[in-house]
Every structure is written in C-alpha cells, then in structure tokens.
C-alpha cells in the first residue's frame, strides 16, 4: 500500500460529504476531511466554523477554530452568539462533523473526563460546541482513530448525545435530527444498524482483518451482513491530501499563519 491508515481514514470521511452539504466543522481530523472534500469531489461544499466564519475556504488547514485564514476566506463572519443561535440552532446546517476521546456503540461521545468527574484521572477539554452540534445538525459524521481505549463499552462521561445510552433516546427526548449516521476510523467504516442504532462495521479498509477491528474495539463489535471493502485512495485523492498537509505544515512553521 502506498498510503497510511490515517490518509485512508481522512479520505473515506471526505467522500461522505456532498457538494450541497452545509457542514459545521470541528478542528483536527474533521477539518482535514472537509477541506479534502472541497479540494476533490465537492468543490461547492459549504464549510461553517463555530468561530462565526460562514463559507470559509481555507487554503491551509487552520490550527485553531478561529485562525485568520478562516475569516479572510469566508463569505461572511458573524458573532459567536449569532452562529450558535441563528445558524446552528436555527437548523441551517445539514452535517456536523465530530470527534471525541471516547465513543460507545451507540455513537455517544465523551470529551470531558477520563475517570470520575469530581476526581478526574485526565481532564479533557470539554464539550465546546459538540453538545448542540449533535442535536441541531441534520446528520452527524464522526471520525476517530480505532483503539480499545477510545471505542469503549461504557463512556466515563456522556458529553455529546449520539443515539443515547440504549440507542433509543433521541426519539424519547423529542429530537428530530438523525444523529450519528457514520463513524470512520483508520480501520473501517461503521454505520448504525436499523432499529437498534448500534454502530456495526459496514466496510473494512484494504488489508484490515475482522479480528483487528474486534481486538481494537472495547465492546463486542458486530459486522453487517454485507461488509464491503473501502475503495482505496485514488491517486487524485492522495495527491490532494498530501498537498493540503504540505501547505499546512509550511504555513504553521515559524510563526506565520
């Protein structure tokens, strides 16, 4: 293989975005996937960052959610209260792209603490925009590295609602948006099963074995009846991703953003 597992993950996530999507973008892996989509098959995808930047078209990946690059390339920049009230809560965003420190089988996320809340072993950054992104956007895509410490049987803290602790809580809470419809990792693609909403493996990346996914998942992971092989990265996708990463590395070195 002439590509890394991280490249496969980013490319597989990018493919999920369509040209007509309006996407609320988290920093890090989600931002890389969204900007790759914009550089390849979805040049018209609308990227919105919580710093208030609407239709941002960054040439390099921002390090923070509010880099100058975002504002300079945006169609418009609004205040943060306006962003959360009119644009996110107002229902204008079709896709939210999230990540977290832990995910469970129903796509619930923890980004708050490892260990008990009052005496955490690791204090994580916290919710940020995720709690409301998860319920206000039409659908949620998630991107995370696979590992038994990240894909857990039980979250240490439920920061962000996926399908809920039993997979059925969204409807009970009167939430009408779809919630998590996709989890892309560096090993596979998972999607919620009909009825149960449990994330099951629907595609394995090239060369990945089922045992490898099982060993790296903290719950008894299940596989869909039909498991596809993820289409490997095309030369065009790889070239675009590497160019984006190289431009980003140059821009972030030496204090010039």
């Amino acid at each position, binding site marked *: 293989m002439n590509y890394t597992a991280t490249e496969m993950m980013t490319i597989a996530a990018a493919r999920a975005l369509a040209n007509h999507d309006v996407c609320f973008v988290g920093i890090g892996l989600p931002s890389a996937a969204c900007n790759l989509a914009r550089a390849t098959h979805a040049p018209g995808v609308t990227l919105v960052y919580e710093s208030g930047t609407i239709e941002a078209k960054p040439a390099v990946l921002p390090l923070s959610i509010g880099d100058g690059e975002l504002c*300079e390339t945006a169609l418009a920049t609004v205040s943060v209260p306006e962003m959360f009230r009119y644009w996110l*809560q107002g229902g204008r965003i079709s896709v939210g792209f999230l990540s977290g420190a832990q995910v469970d089988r129903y796509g619930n996320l923890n980004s708050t603490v490892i260990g008990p809340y009052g005496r955490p072993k690791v204090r994580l950054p916290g919710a940020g925009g995720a709690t409301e992104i998860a319920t206000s956007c039409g659908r949620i895509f998630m991107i995370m590295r696979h590992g038994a410490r990240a894909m857990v049987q039980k979250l240490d803290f439920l920061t962000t609602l996926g399908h*809920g602790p039993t997979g059925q809580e969204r409807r009970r809470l009167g939430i009408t948006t779809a919630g998590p419809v996709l989890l892309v990792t560096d090993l596979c693609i998972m999607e919620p099963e009909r009825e149960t909403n449990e994330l099951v493996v629907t595609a394995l990346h090239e060369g990945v074995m089922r045992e490898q996914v099982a060993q790296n998942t903290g719950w008894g992971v299940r596989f869909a009846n039909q498991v596809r092989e993820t289409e490997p990265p095309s030369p065009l996708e790889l070239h675009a991703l590497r160019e984006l990463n190289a431009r980003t590395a140059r821009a972030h070195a030496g204090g010039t953003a």
Partner: protein
Amino acid sequence: MASFQSLSDAISGLVHDGDTVALEGFTHLIPFAAGHEIIRQGRRNLTLIRMTPDLIYDQMIGCGCARKLVFSWGGNPGVGSLYRLRDAVENGWPNALEIEEHSHAAMANAYAAGAAGMPSAFFRGYRGTALPEVNARIRFIDCPFTGETLACVAAHRPDVAIIHAQRADRKGNVLIEGIVGVQKEAVLAAKRSLVTVEEIVDDLAAGSPNSVVLPSWTVTAIAVAPEGARPSYAHGYYSRDNSFYVAWDGIAKDRESFGRWMRENVLR
C-alpha cells in the same frame, strides 16, 4: 466616556481580588497583555469566565490568580491539553480550582442575555448530555407557548470584561473587526470594562456602517497595548503565532519549565 489609562493603572483600578472577570476573544484578539498585567499585579481568588480558556487562562491559573473557572472548551486548539488547567483540576496545583462547565451555545447565550439585561437565557440545548448532572446552574424550563423543554442558564454579569481591539479613536470609540466572538456581548454585560487596543487613531476607518463599534460611553477604560493579543492575533495587524501554541505544550507540561517561562517572559 471611556478614560485613557496606562495598562497598569487600568488593571489596578478595575480588577480587584475576588472579582468575576471575563477576558474574551474567540481565538482572535485574546487580551494577553492585560492577562499578564493581572498576573504581575498578583490578583487572587478571581472567578474567571471565558468560552475557551486558551493559553492566557492556563497562565493565570498556573500563577494562582483563579479560584473558579466558568468555561466551555479548555484545550490548546489543534495541539492538545492546557496542562496548568489540568494540574489545577487534577491535582489542586497551585490551588484547588472550582469549575463550572458549559457548552459553547450556553456560554454564548449567557453573554447575550447579560448584554440584554436579562437574568437568564433559554435555548435548545444540553439534550441527552450528562453536563446538567455536574453543573447545578444548568436548568430546564418549558416554553409557555409550545410546551417544549428548553435549557436555561443564568446570564453572565461579570464585574469586569476585558477585551483587545484593533483601535480606538481619540474620543474612545472602539472598533473590532474579523472574528468578533462574544466581545461586544461581554463588554455590554459587564459592570466595568477595559479595552486594550493596538493603536489610537484620529479616524476609526470602519469598513462599513455595520462594523462592530463600541461607543466610548459603553467602555470604562482604554489602554494602548501594541501587539497586546500575541500569540493570538489581530486581524489586519499580525497573524496568530501558531508555532508558539505548539511550543506551549512543552513549556506548560511541567511546573518548573512553566514557572521559568513566566519569570523570564511575564514577571520580569
């Protein structure tokens, strides 16, 4: 009318031990120079409000200025942890830190409610999350018209709001451009306010009639602090020093290298 003061006089006049203080700026225009002056003047027992504590609150917490932190995302953006914040929460160093934890939507709504003179804000939020179990200040109310259950949080009403802006004119009117965050709301919600600026000019040269301008009569004090947002940035003046944000990870990881950096760069 805003009074023009030195940064040192403004901090000593406006920020007292035990105050509730909000230094705002969403990634952009973070008032580092003002935060450093608070550290140098040795303020204690502050309740610090800020959506994203960022490096400035990491430094203030690590230097023992804070008793309590009200926040929604406490990381080093794109890099990782704020180690001084973590050390305070995980180990009580240099002192125990009470935390009141929210989501961004709640913090933004709480500032807007403060600016609007409201006691609280309600919004569609916190559904299905465990945050209300650990934060008693997150409540829920039913809409009297539709019956929908909505999240409710108390308005932010800081004793002092501190922001950094591009410039002020000689009358003390302030212009903020670029990513404007919650700065206008923070100033209008606060009892007192300090704006540090890159420069004082004859004409604000606002880009449009809709530019964010804080009239002089809404601001308590203005202090000139060129490059006062570094390593954050000022749109139109200088870029974010992303390499410093990356370097902070190593500096702040242990108490000794943090203390040395503060002594050499802030406390001297």
